[in-house]
């Protein structure tokens, strides 16, 4: 209950104080350069990595990136820079639980 309340307060503050949402709410920030680069901040760890697929753990749910010839250029505790040919970026919500 308290967590929920904290979440609400944060959302409200972000709205009222015009702060970036990712900072306030621990959301991933994804920057893409065409199809070749994708830069994700605020992830929570690597789940799968092959040259066609990258699965990242987020605070809420997962992020699935599909494409070809993936290479992780840099990986830091909360940031990752992926290179390759990116075809899809998919959010998987834990609650829906459908993608297994």
């Amino acid at each position, binding site marked *: 209950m308290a967590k929920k309340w904290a979440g609400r307060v944060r959302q409200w503050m972000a709205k009222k104080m015009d702060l970036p949402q990712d900072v306030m709410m621990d959301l991933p920030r994804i920057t893409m350069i065409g199809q070749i680069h994708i830069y994700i901040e605020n992830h929570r*760890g*690597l*789940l*799968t*990595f*092959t*040259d066609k697929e990258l699965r990242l753990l987020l605070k809420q749910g997962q992020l699935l990136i599909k494409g070809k010839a*993936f*290479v*992780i*250029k*840099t*990986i*830091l*505790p909360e940031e990752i*820079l992926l290179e390759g040919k990116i075809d899809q970026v998919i959010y998987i919500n834990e609650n829906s639980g459908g993608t297994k």
Partner: protein
Amino acid sequence: MKNQWIEFLFGRVTVRVAGKGTERFINILIRNGLHIWDVKRHGTETITFKMRLQDALKMRKYARRSECDITFLQRSGAPFLLKRSLKNSGFIIGAAIFLFLILLLSNVVWGIEINGAKPATEHQIRKELDKMGVKVGKFQFFIDNVETIQKKLTNQIGALTWVGVELKGTTYHFQVVEKNQPKAPEVLSPRNLIAKKEATIVNYYVEKGKTVVDVHDHVKVGQLLVSGLIGKEGEEIPVAAKGEVWGETWYRSQVELPLKTKFYVFNGKEQQKHSILLGKWEIPIWGFWTPKFKEFETEENIHKIHFLKWDLPISMVNSTVREREEVVRTYGVQEAFKIAVELAKKNVIKNHLDEEASIKDEKILHKSIVDGKVKLEVLFIAVENIAKAQPIPKETQMNDGKAKNN
């Protein structure tokens, strides 16, 4: 992105991780602050990535807990390069010695070429150069620069009018002009001797030809002294007249000499400074202190350092700072007149007389002191050879020939 160069400096390794749970292993590594990049997957259970050398040592701890096999594939960067070069240090030392030797040998005098000198003069020049230290096999740093060599040579060797000194690479080229050019073979075409100056004849000595004038005769410029046509009248044979005719000549000379003269002299105190010139930066090696001299002159001697045929932008500079003093020279009036007369004499000898002539008498025509200057007008009486050759025109010869035939 991270700075590639720092990674290069500290060394990096390529690691292959095989087994289950490679992703988990990577998560563990990055959460513990190990830097990883260029992660690639090879097959289902293998990935490769690159990491820092320092981190590779720390990795062992985490690797033990995981179920992955770790292999190091490639090592690159400065530490490994250094290791390898230490192993092959012979090559590097060899290369350094080689470059150093070339640099050294490029600055050695390898040849001295002298052009335009007679063998005797050439020998003299070589001896003088030896004394100066300009020898084959010497370093150019320790040799005077080209201008100084030129100056010294011209001063030391009397037979030289001019020496062109040029340093081309490692060879010194000397272009010599001698004072006593080999005399052109005397032209023995028929000629007369005529007077080149107005004079009164005092003496003569004629080897060949018919003397036309006598002692105490006053001759004018161009007057015939010795005729080249000898023999009986009407049957003259043209010959080359030869001889000396000594005459008295007069020269008027005006001189001015200030009673007080200021000039600078070096008092012998000097200081040497050495430095290296890198482009425009001068780095002193020896002699950092600034000279304490009140008045001084600096002479700079710059040696360029060569590499093969190129000049490097590095030069050795050797500068000499000499102290100078101001000296005022004062003459008394009588002394000044005496010196002025000497000066006038020297002027006359230098400008008008040759080596054989002599001054017989001098007369002061006028003397005065104006504005601290002595003014003199002196008349000199000199005795000199006034004979000058003048070829006898062809026509006259032809006529004479005809006359002879007749």
